[in-house]
């Protein structure tokens, strides 16, 4: 009723419209400034005495709310203490109408707003492809906004929805195919409307493909483009049908959530890496060599332990380094061993191919790893870490993938517990624990760390001594040179001792670390996770370091003492054994750790608690296995095959065991941060370590003199140098290549320079990030100020409206209720 008594000047928009539905917004969508003008105009036009007399009182009334605000605010030291508003203000209907037409309110649901927003975005995309016209030449309504999010509020150019749609369709037509599809998919309209937009965009004559068309060949090009699109879509369909293990992953995520799923996704990623390596190596190394087998004196002895040791029958096969020839393979040209000229022949320079294939495989793996690491990092990096945890927990923690009822219930419990903890943490006053407590906590942590570091160092030293012992033992066995079957069998079996020792340490020690960590107290569960991962990582890194020293520093330097013709093949076999033992021990661990433990706890202890799947430990096992696979690439080109088979088995075994024996983890697991962390671990200690070892081998160690593709050279690296020199000799124009090789590739100064420049670039980028952090803080302050401004203006508007209703009882009440309290100012 009060609404009718308010008369607005001239604007039919503000008549009896019910503004419940935002579809009516085209009637009320008007600029804010114009409205203020109207209000002040109305105010000045009024004739009633009461209004004039109230002018004086308006001042006091205006002061009154501020006074009341001051009163209520006086006793409060900081803003954060103001909780619920003391008062709930009722705004007049006129004010409500004004509020509902504010630009920020209309962004959400109205189609007009969405269409405008996407019109702006498409405008930007179109603009990017053309030469940039001057911005002044565009009418105001078409000028793109800076962030593309603002709705046009130009009162002069009142856009109806159809106009906006027309212009959006026009823009869509001018975009290229990919851009149009991308834009269409991202528009938050219903699918029905999107299809209509697309249809209109495609239907308009003469504009269905790119602009640089020659009209005469347009028909043919059109068909070619259509055919290309169809084949591209079928290729995508084929790729997506190749999505390995899609249903299995869905079942795992449905029952266990995103945390456990990340382990299996990581496994799948590693599988793809290894398949890629497999393809590259098979294509360029194994197949050419297998087609042209060298004439080696093969002595195949079958011991029955071949599959485990990788030696014996396999020792002289295409699996190992020793099989590969050091000359250029030619097509059957009366079986010549060296390069002959017999007309047209296919020649394949084996040493060069070996060198470059391994190098290229590592290089491409490095690029893929760094790319996926940076992508994952970009998704999970948060500039300001402290604020917003609770809000994120409420809105982003419910995992929509979980479908099993019991898991849903568990998730609900988990979230409730985490919310309670967070609220308690935020509320809790800083309890300064006494010095004694802090000291005791610190000393316990120190003790735990000492135990862990000490045991790691102890195990590393033990492996060092054991490897030396096995080395001597092998020397003795070789020197005894008894050729009985038993002694040979024993010799083969003794090769398995070192892998068994290392794998059992890898299995048992992390469990020991977990037990030690029980007595410690940590502030947050994620810190506990990180500490456990770090300790495990330290163990694995030190073990691998000792082993690398053993192989590259002991075996490679004096191969003859252990009776080795070909130390590279021996190292390859060792790595094969390590990989296999790792797999066997993981299966044993799954069997004992999960299956038997569940049986034990159910039958004997009579508890319903199933074991929890330890994500961190399993992922570190995967990374360890992958490091070994990368280390062995140089010595055993077929090692990716073993790794692929191992990963396939591992997937099914872990999944089966998980489904039967384990329960979902109770602690929170920040999946995307952890995934980033694991990919970083895969890149930095793991891949980098393997690459450094391989580079060191190629650069420094003398290859065997009588086997392999690099026999006779001083280092493997010289193969490349020889080829460059050969090229320069054959073709005098290429002497610069030798020069480039000597000064750029072999000279470490160039590498230092490149690394230095790289570091400087990284430093600059980190400074940019810091600057952006500061800008974000400033912008947040500004938004708060704008919010305060808005509140102020709206209350002023309300007072103006109040004055226009001279005898409204609400005004009397409203004046006393106008509090500028923070929090819910209006409930609409």
């Amino acid at each position, binding site marked *: 009723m009060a609404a009718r008594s308010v008369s607005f000047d001239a604007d039919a928009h503000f008549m009896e419209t019910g503004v419940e539905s935002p579809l009516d917004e085209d009637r009320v969508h008007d600029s804010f400034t114009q409205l203020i003008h109207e209000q002040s105009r109305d105010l000045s036009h009024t004739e009633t005495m009461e209004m004039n007399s109230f002018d004086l009182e308006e001042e006091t009334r205006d002061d009154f709310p501020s006074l009341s605000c001051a009163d209520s605010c006086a006793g409060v030291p900081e803003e954060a203490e103001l909780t619920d508003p003391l008062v709930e203000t009722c705004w007049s209907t006129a004010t409500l109408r004004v509020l509902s037409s504010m630009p920020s309110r209309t962004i959400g649901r109205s189609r007009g707003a969405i269409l405008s927003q996407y019109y702006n975005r498409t405008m930007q995309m179109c603009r990017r492809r053309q030469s940039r016209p001057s911005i002044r030449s565009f009418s105001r309504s078409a000028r793109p906004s800076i962030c593309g999010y603002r709705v046009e509020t130009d009162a002069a150019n009142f856009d109806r929805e159809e106009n906006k749609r027309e212009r959006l369709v026009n823009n869509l037509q001018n975009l290229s195919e990919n851009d149009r599809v991308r834009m269409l998919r991202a528009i938050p309209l219903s699918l029905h409307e999107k299809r209509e937009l697309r249809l209109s965009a495609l239907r308009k004559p003469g504009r269905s493909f790119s602009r640089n068309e020659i009209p005469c060949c347009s028909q043919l090009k059109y068909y070619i483009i259509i055919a290309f699109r169809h084949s591209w879509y079928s290729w995508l369909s084929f790729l997506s049908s190749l999505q390995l293990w899609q249903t299995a992953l869905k079942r795992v995520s449905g029952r266990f959530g995103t945390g456990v799923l990340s382990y299996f996704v990581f496994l799948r990623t590693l599988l793809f890496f290894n398949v890629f390596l497999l393809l590259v190596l098979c294509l360029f190394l194994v197949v050419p060599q297998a087609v042209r087998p060298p004439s080696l004196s093969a002595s195949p002895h079958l011991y029955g332990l071949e599959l485990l040791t990788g030696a014996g029958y396999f020792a002289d096969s295409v699996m190992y380094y020793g099989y590969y020839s050091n000359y250029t393979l030619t097509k059957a040209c009366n079986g010549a061993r060296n390069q002959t000229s017999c007309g047209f022949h296919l020649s394949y320079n084996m040493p060069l191919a070996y060198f470059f294939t391994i190098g290229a495989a590592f290089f491409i793996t490095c690029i893929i790893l760094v790319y996926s690491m940076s992508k994952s990092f970009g998704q999970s990096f948060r500039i300001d870490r402290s604020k917003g945890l609770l809000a994120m927990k409420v809105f982003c923690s419910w995992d*929509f993938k979980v479908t099993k009822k019991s898991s849903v219930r568990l998730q609900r419990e988990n979230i409730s517990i985490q919310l309670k903890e967070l609220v308690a943490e935020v509320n809790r006053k800083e309890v300064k624990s006494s010095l004694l407590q802090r000291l005791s906590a610190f000393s316990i942590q120190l003790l735990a760390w000492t135990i862990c570091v000490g045991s790691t160092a102890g195990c590393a030293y033990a492996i060092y001594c054991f490897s030396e012992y096995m080395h001597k033992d092998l020397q003795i066995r070789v020197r005894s040179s008894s050729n009985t079957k038993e002694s040979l069998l024993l010799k083969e079996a003794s090769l398995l001792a070192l892998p068994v020792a290392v794998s059992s340490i890898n299995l048992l020690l992390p469990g020991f670390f977990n037990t030690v960590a029980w007595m410690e107290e940590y502030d947050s569960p994620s810190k506990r996770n990180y500490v456990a991962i770090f300790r495990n990582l330290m163990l694995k890194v030190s073990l691998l370091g000792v082993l690398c020293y053993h192989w590259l520093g002991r075996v490679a330097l004096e191969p003859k003492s252990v009776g080795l013709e070909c130390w590279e093949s021996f190292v390859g076999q060792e790595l094969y054994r390590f990989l296999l033992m790792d797999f066997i021990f993981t299966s044993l661990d799954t069997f004992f750790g999960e299956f038997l433990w569940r049986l034990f706890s159910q039958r004997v202890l009579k508890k319903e608690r199933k074991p929890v799947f330890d994500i961190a430990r399993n992922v570190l096992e995967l990374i360890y296995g992958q490091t070994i696979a990368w280390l062995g690439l140089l010595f055993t080109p077929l090692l990716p095959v073993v790794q692929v088979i191992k990963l396939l088995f591992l997937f099914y075994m872990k999944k089966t065991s998980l489904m039967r024996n384990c329960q979902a983890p109770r602690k929170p697991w920040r999946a995307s941060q952890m995934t980033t962390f694991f990919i970083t671990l895969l890149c930095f200690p793991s891949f980098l370590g393997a690459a450094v070892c391989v580079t060191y081998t190629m650069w420094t160690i003398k290859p065997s003199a009588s086997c392999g593709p690099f026999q006779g050279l001083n280092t493997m690296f010289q193969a490349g140098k020889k080829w460059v020199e050969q090229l320069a000799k054959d073709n005098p124009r290429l002497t610069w290549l030798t020069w480039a090789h000597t000064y750029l590739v072999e000279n470490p100064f160039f590498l230092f320079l490149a690394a230095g420049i790289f570091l400087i670039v990284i430093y600059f980028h980190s400074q940019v990030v810091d600057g952006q952090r500061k800008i974000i803080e400033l912008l947040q302050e500004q*938004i708060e100020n704008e919010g305060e401004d808005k509140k102020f203006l709206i209350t002023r508007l309300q007072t103006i409206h109040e004055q226009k209703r001279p005898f409204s009882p609400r005004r009397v009440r409203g004046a006393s209720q106008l509090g500028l309290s923070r929090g819910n100012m209006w409930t609409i």
Partner: protein
Amino acid sequence: MGNKQTIFTAQQLDAYQDCTYFTRKEILRLFHRYRDLAPQLVPLDYTNQPDVRLPYELIGSMPELKDNPFRQRIAEVFSEDGEGNMTLDDFLDMFSVLSEMAPRDLKAYYAFKIYDFNNDDFICKSDLEKTLNKLTRNELTEDEVRMVCEKVMDEADLDNDGRLSLEDFQHMIVRAPDFLSTFHIRI
């Protein structure tokens, strides 16, 4: 690769591929999932675009949604009539937005609409309380619910108007790295 299916015309399939994040095969698979909910209602021939709308009860009984506390809101947000009764277009749209490849902005927009229970384009305190109740059922006490709502408002409300607008929500989502992986349904 050939035109062996007779459910959609080629243009319809192209349109669906351009407007959702699904490939051809996935669209057909989704169609069959849709049809399996009510084989007698959904015809096998969609070339003349029949107007078939499955009631909310059927949609809410899908295994992917059955135990999700927000299933009703999800169905309401994506359905044309706002009641949860979905056509095939709505069905595809829903799973496209909830798929892996949808970008963060699009997901944030729809997540905002899902959590906005009273459809007023703002997440006010009552919306927040309803969200919390759906998340935690009976695990939190009244007091705790109230405290959590206050703290969330404090943290996320940037312009201090007492409720979260779409910008506030998007600003918070940008800082949450897990959002893309949790706001995702595999189908």
